[in-house]
């Protein structure tokens, strides 16, 4: 990289944060508005990709010691487990439930088990996408 490097690095510091926030917002809004685990995961993954593009992968790996292969495995496991869990309550595989709770700050909030499932999907997507891009870019 050359002259543009400084601008890219400076900009991405701010932008990455925005993308992360946007991704997390998308993830949580998915239940009632456009968004969800897949898109949220993709957006967060694109933030990671931007980080890896503007800084070299070693610097990022030092700052963020995440093994994305394990992250994707964890995601798949989480999605599967959230499917198995209802079996212990006498329900069918992958059946989800939801309820409304009064939480201290948020007030009346809806909590749904599908969020756990979606989190699994999101983690899988993040892990796989970043992992693929990392392995291609490191292939020299």
């Amino acid at each position, binding site marked *: 990289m050359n002259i543009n490097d400084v601008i890219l690095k400076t900009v991405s510091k701010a932008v990455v944060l925005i993308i992360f926030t946007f991704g997390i917002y*998308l993830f949580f809004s*998915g*239940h*009632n*508005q*456009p*968004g*969800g*685990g*897949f*898109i949220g995961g*993709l*957006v967060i*993954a*694109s933030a990671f*990709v931007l980080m890896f*593009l503007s800084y070299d992968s070693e610097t990022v790996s030092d700052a963020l010691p995440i093994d994305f*292969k394990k992250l*994707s*495995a964890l*995601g*798949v496991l989480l*999605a*599967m487990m959230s*499917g198995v869990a209802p*079996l212990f309550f*006498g*329900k*069918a*595989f*992958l059946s*989800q439930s*939801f*309820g409304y709770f009064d939480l201290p700050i948020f007030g009346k909030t*809806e909590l*749904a088990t*599908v969020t756990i*499932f*979606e989190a*699994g*999907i999101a983690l*899988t*997507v993040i*892990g*796989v*996408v970043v*992992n*693929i*891009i990392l*392995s*291609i*870019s490191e*292939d*020299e």
Partner: protein
Amino acid sequence: MYLLILAILIPFFVAALMPLIHKRLEPFHLGWFVLLVPLVLFALFVSQIPAISNGDTLIQTIHWIPSIGINFTAYLDGLGLIMALLITGMGSLVVLYSIYYLSPSDSFPHFYAYLLLFMGAMLGVVLSDNLIVLYVFWELTSISSFLLIAFWYHRKNSRYGAQKSLLITVFGGLGMLAGFLMLHGITGTFSIREIIAVMVQYTDHGLFYPAMFLILLGAFTKSAQFPFHIWLPDAMEAPTPVSAYLHSATMVKAGLYLVARFTPIFGGTASWFWTVTIVGLITLFWGAFCAVRQTDLKALLAYSTISQLGLIMSLLGLGSAALHFGDGEQGALYGLAIFAALFHLVNHSTFKGALFMVVGIIDHQVGTRDIRRLGGLMAALPITFTFAVIGSFSMAGLPFFNGFLSKEMFFASTVNAVGLPLFGVPTWGLLIPLIAWIASVFTFVYCMIFVFRTFFGTPQLKKVDRKPVEPTLGMLISPAILCVLIIGLFFAPNLLGDHLLKPALQGIIPDISGAAPQISAWHGVNIESLMTFGIIAVGTLLFLSLRRWIIIYRLQPAGWTFTAFYNAFLKGLKQTANWTTTHYMTGHLPAYFSYIFLFFIVVAGGTFVYTDALAIDFTNDSPISLYEALLTAVMAIAAISILFTKSHLSAILLNGVLGFSIAIFFVLFRAPDLALTQLVIETVTTVLFLLCFHFLPEWTTERSSKRIKVRNAVIAIGAGVTVTLIGLTVNSGPLFDSISSYFENSYELTGGDNIVNSILGDFRAFDTMLESLVLFIAGLGVYTLIRLKLGKGPEKDEHQ
């Protein structure tokens, strides 16, 4: 609460624990811990005997995929109980025996994990009421058997035997699955009890006989019936405790169990009667005949197992006639055959288990199982000798051992079959007792070979590796218990008959309640006892003159065996596969694309032509807005330009234009979720492309002949036309009702306003879950492929 289901799952849990606990138990042998599992389960099933013999049944269900009728339903009746007792009882003895048999260099956690896996799978087979669940456990027994046969995987023969047994039993299992699906197609249920209840109405259904033969295929391959018996002798490469457990006492009986379990569904028809009886009789004869020529003790026992399985199978076939007669004197007469089958099932497990353990002791203490190198072991191994006599005399059907009783009942059933006024029996019926008798003569001969050639005669100490001595006490406990059972069952057979065999008989044929007889050791001079006397007389003569007539075995040409056929088939399969693969895997990417697109055109376009589905109707279409027309034009221009670009960069960017235009389309059609996804995906892929771009070789124009260019153009245009036609036709032919109303109550059901995500996460979460799994596997694939190229370092090390 869920006692039965727990009983099936406990072995799996303990098997999963194996790697964790085997280090912690260091001073103790892992086997002592494992032994607890079958012991506890055995106690559990014993505690069920009073209830079951009163005619009760136990049923427990866990819903698995209730929407298509697949539930984990455990069902315990007399038949299931008798099998479960065999599995856990023999399991305990075999685990105990294995503690002394295995050498310290063997990997205990692997061995016991496989054994427990098998135990759980087997319990699952005999206790499942659901066909699909039964099938899953059925194949698990094949897999665990594969792992156990290949336990000493450094031996070539072990690997060969394991592969052979897996290929043959899984082949049969797949046939069985097809049969199960047909049964479901006929009756609309996967529950065996429900199928039994409704099957009467469907006996003339077109799929009745295909389903029957496919299910029998599964049973015959599993129970090593002729001509699928060839895997069993090779399975003897497994450690001896495994042979005793899987390949004589339990797994091979899964096929018999299946036939017994399905008798109420298919029994009472001529096809079932003849197929099961004839296959059983042929197997009985061929196994006994081949056993005589074996020189390896374990191979001899393997063929004798085949023969005995055939005996039980033919009894099940003969007994199926009882269903035709129902509750009456005739029904009871043939019900006796099924009773005899169950009785012999138990007896065979006791004496064959004991005999395998005896062979294990000989192998362990002497170092060889070759009859030609053995002899005169009686003095050195007196206790083992006693076990061998008890086991083989029971197998030969001699008095004072339990084998005698069930053998007499077998003869009685074959004699009864001669007078059967059904299925065209009178013409050929006389052959049934005749074959049974001849096979039993051979059985007598090989039993005598087993005892006399091994334990009598002059000791050949020079030919054996070790000086034979009696093994440690622990190794003798298991066969001793079995020998006590062999003799005990002779003197008190009705204890077993009343409490286990009768309820099991009722589990198979509930109608003939009075069929279960009182077993008596001495039943007067009748045809059966005369047949036994004849066997002893002729058998002794044959054994003494063995050297004179053994040459008849050389009459069979060397290459004319089923094993040779199996080997030739595998070899041919490999060659054909190699030939086809080298011819279509050219390593040339355009070739692969042509296959894919050609296939697509033929299948999708062919369906259009074949079903006459091509109907394009523009009348109901909404008007095309200006934006849509513009977008389409942009996309068309971008797509066509890609064909003519000269550089990578512009191709990538044009591709991006296409993707973003699609995203705008989604916006126009008010699908924000899709638009969002498409935008992000497009961004990420463009970045990905740009990354790859750096490493791509220079863009060179491919020089290909005009013919190939024309061919490619035809394929490309064909694919494009097909896709366009599909798009236009789908829109004009509303074949199904719209499903959007189905999701209208998504908020009440899932608490989510966003229908798209409710579908993804709630209604069709199974799809989403599997898709994420596919994505994960694809990611691993990409990673591995790229790393493989990078990882030349370690590969070089290997070569050095």
